[in-house]
């Protein structure tokens, strides 16, 4: 796993409170990990800050699962 994806996974782990090792690409951010709107805001801001990127609203709207985030970060690598 490349650096960006590792950082992304660490951020999801930090926001959801689940160990990174337990996270699966298929897990839904809201339904499985309880990442509601406030947590999603924290997640997106933290990803932007740690990776020094800007995530567009269109891209953010497509992020429903852990895998969506990892795929997005992989595509930006």
């Amino acid at each position, binding site marked *: 796993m490349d650096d960006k994806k590792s950082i992304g996974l660490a951020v999801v782990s930090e926001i959801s*409170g689940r160990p990174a090792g337990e996270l699966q690409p298929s897990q839904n951010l809201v339904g499985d990990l309880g990442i*509601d*709107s*406030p*947590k*999603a*805001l*924290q997640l*997106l*801001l933290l990803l932007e800050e740690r990776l020094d990127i800007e995530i567009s*609203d269109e891209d*953010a*709207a497509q992020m429903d699962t852990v895998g969506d985030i990892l795929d997005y970060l992989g595509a930006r690598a």
Partner: protein
Amino acid sequence: MKVNPDSRFGRLTLSLAGHLARWLLLGLSATLRARVVEGAERLEQVRAAGSPVILSFWHDRSFLSAAFLYRALHLRGLHITLLASQSRDGEMVTRMVKAWGIDTVRGSATRGGRAALRAIHRAVTRKSSSPIMIPDGPKGPARSFKVGVAVLAQTSGAPILPLGFAAEKPWHLRSWDRMIVPRPFSRVAIVVGEPRHVERDLDADTLEDERRRLEALLDQVTRRAEDSVGGHLTPPADTSEAEQAGATDAR
């Protein structure tokens, strides 16, 4: 009557309703004897500084607050953004405040919340706009402070400005929050609380503690406003809109 906001008839109806509500609100407000009974200097500091604050009050005070915020802050140069729900009520409110030149972002905790909260965050951090965030809106439970407002303060750095509103012997609508409508020519009291910053590095438990403190703070300023018009802060209605859908007739 159900109105489809996407139809031509629906748009026209909502537009007319928005204009009517705006004129009713302004007309009624013009008769009120409104006074800031505590914290007038804080309001002045906010207006003079021009830095964004998160304007917060309970949902049942929305009607009371609207004309005051428009006149005391928006017309005096503070850029305001309103978070309005994606419901028909939210559509009407949006049309009403747009005519005043106030920006709106549409969404709520239940619909479009992620994008809406992000848009509000951007309005604060990039446009220095002060958002109106009603922490128990749009559907309650009444006087329950949703954590999203605290997170917005935490991540944007803007403090929350707690506002208490009360009217003398008001009417109550039969909505989930028993929305307060002032009687014409009655006294209205406004209490402006101390702006409260939310620290950036809070863990989930500490953030929950902060959310409870903010809830208590908003109750406190509302209670003080009630005290000054001879009213009292009743226990919150233990219903949300989901439990008490639709009823909005004046009691």
